[in-house]
């Protein structure tokens, strides 16, 4: 099986480096970007098998990115894991939209998601 590619959208590079390190060790290829705009460019350059996305980004939010991302037919079925500092409780009224319209397959609250749990979720989605 070819190497699975993950597009990681994470604005904090110290945190991103720990995620990249552990995902690479598990055999995934990781393309890291810090903003919504760069994410669209990176996805266009190489179609990812999975997107891991923080919602708190500079200028354009992760939600804005997801709307943009889903507007392209080629990317409509790529699974998205939200890994965010924003607690899921803040989306309790819009969870239906996140799952059904934006294709979010997992919502992980960053402070409560360790590296091992992240790997487990990634494996489950694209492993």
């Amino acid at each position, binding site marked *: 099986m070819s190497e699975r590619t993950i597009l990681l959208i994470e*604005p*904090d*590079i*110290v*945190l991103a480096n*720990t*995620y990249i*390190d*552990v995902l690479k*060790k598990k055999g995934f290829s990781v393309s890291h*970007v*810090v*903003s919504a705009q*760069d994410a669209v460019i990176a996805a266009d350059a190489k179609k990812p098998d999975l997107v891991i996305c*923080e919602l*708190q*980004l*500079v*200028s354009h939010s992760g939600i804005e990115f997801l709307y943009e991302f889903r507007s392209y037919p080629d990317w409509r079925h790529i699974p998205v894991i939200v890994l965010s*500092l*924003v607690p899921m409780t803040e989306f309790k009224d819009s969870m239906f939209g996140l799952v059904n319209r934006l294709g979010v397959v997992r919502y992980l609250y*960053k*402070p409560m998601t*360790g*590296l*091992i749990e992240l790997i487990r979720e990634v494996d489950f989605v694209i492993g």
Partner: protein
Amino acid sequence: MDPARQTKDYLLPHHLLLSIAEQMKLPLLQIARQAELVNFSGDLNGVVGIQVLTANALRLIDAYSLSLQLKNGVACELTPEATSIASVLYDVNRQLQTFARMYNVQLELNIGGRFEPVIAHKKGLESAIIGLASAFIETLPAQVNGGDLKLQLATHRCRYGIVAGVYADIPGLRSEALSRGRKLYGRSRQPLVDVSHTSGAGIFVADAIFKAMSLKMHASRHHHLYGLGVVLKTSSQLSLV
């Protein structure tokens, strides 16, 4: 408190506390994941990173405490003194070098020319500039992928005195963004949404410290860079010394 006054006073203590609480999640999270990675890979180099992140988080807490002490007038040891801005910036640069390297940011001093001493709380000035610089260091890599990330601790003259501040290539950092951020902080997770992905607590703690020192932080330019700085008045008597 009178609600009208409450909306005008952008530096309410509980807003600052909320901002700090939101901000502190980041270093704690970084430390937790680094520790997990050390455990996972056995690479002890990660421990150095944990030390640097911890030291910086503690500096922010110290700055926050100082802002409260100054506001409440209990920081009696912090009497204004003749202060060399260059030496303050030099100390900040030295303290934040390793933290800046973690974020691939080149932290530079830009002190062109000789500047006469100013009367200021040296510790307050240092803590505020550390808060500003730390916030900029965290956010600079989140603006652009890769590239040359430079942050300047700089000083220059203006018609009202000497400006000391922190400057980088962040075009979104303008007076309007700062004034919007002042209205939103403590209420929004990202009050400076065009500048930072965090709560920007370092910036608002600096704002609180400057305010307690009867100074006002402004968005300003240093050559072609954008940043935040404060105008310090020189003492003509000290100039003679």
